[in-house]
């Protein structure tokens, strides 16, 4: 549930980066945090283990400027990707307005992507949301690994695996170099804001 404050004219929008473990959700947020520093007033909050794995979530608030006089505050969250943390993933999804599904393009991760997407579907159902209705963007991350000789899945295969039924906007990306990170973010923000406007009008 996004929250609209009519007194201060502020709209808070919650966008969650979801995906299997080590697919690059936190790396996406870290890149955004560096690249758009001027629009971010506070520090990125990361709740992680000693081994730098996300334990609960990362949180990055992001000012997008004004639409029709309303300040749009985008709140970016990631979920912990490790299989055992599904209870926590569910908690972070509460009140979500838009989701970026980050898939790992590495060949060996193929099945994990599919499993994670299925679990997203189930977790959203628990909040009476539908993966087919909620604003969603899919990102095929780590395409840069191809240059380093790591076998990665062709985008056509990833698309067939993950996006053949959903048919949502998708991007090849490399969170570590920043390739298409901003494009993914822009797309999910615009889809989410458009969907909110539709609901409100």
């Amino acid at each position: 549930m996004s929250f609209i404050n009519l007194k201060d004219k502020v709209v808070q929008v919650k966008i969650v980066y979801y995906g299997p473990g080590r697919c690059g959700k936190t790396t996406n947020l870290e890149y955004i945090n560096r690249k758009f520093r001027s629009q971010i007033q506070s520090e990125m909050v990361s709740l992680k283990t000693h081994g730098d794995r996300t334990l609960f979530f990362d949180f990055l608030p992001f000012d997008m400027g004004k639409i029709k006089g309303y300040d749009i505050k985008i709140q970016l969250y990631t979920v912990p990707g490790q299989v055992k943390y599904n209870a926590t993933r569910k908690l972070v999804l509460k009140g979500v307005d838009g989701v970026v599904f980050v898939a790992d393009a590495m060949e060996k991760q193929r099945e994990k992507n599919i499993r994670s997407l299925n679990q997203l579907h189930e977790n959203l159902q628990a909040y009476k949301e539908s993966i087919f209705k909620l604003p969603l963007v899919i990102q095929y991350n780590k395409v840069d690994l191809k240059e380093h000789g790591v076998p990665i899945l062709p985008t056509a295969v990833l698309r067939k695996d993950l996006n053949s039924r959903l048919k949502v906007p998708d991007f090849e990306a490399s969170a570590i170099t920043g390739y298409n990170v901003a494009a993914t973010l822009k797309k999910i923000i615009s889809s989410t804001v458009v969907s909110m406007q539709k609901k409100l009008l």
Partner: protein
Amino acid sequence: MNYGIVSQEQLEQIDTILSSKLIKLGVDCVIIIDMAGNIITAKDNGESKYDVYSFAALAAGNFATVDAMAKLVGEAEFSLLFHKGQESNIHFSKIDDELLLISMFGKDISLGFLRLNVVEAIEQIRKVWEGSKD
């Protein structure tokens, strides 16, 4: 998707309650958030400079975690949560299923006195909030 919209009038009423019941008492900062981590309103004594947006996200996570723990031990909920520090303390109290009231206060206020005032403030806020659902 549901959207929480509160009228300007209701927010002003809530702000007045927070000021008269808690800020006047000496509480540094009071925030009302929803369980998704959005800020409904925030009031402070003019001196404290907390990053309330990050705070709201963490507080919602914290409360959700404690809620899940309550269910594990067979409790419906732990409706009260309190963190004590050397100089400052944080008190969490549930307003209803969706809303949480968070007070940050120093060592000059006793917890008991704060709790009494929080209970009164919550009763009044509930009335204003109920009005928004009609």
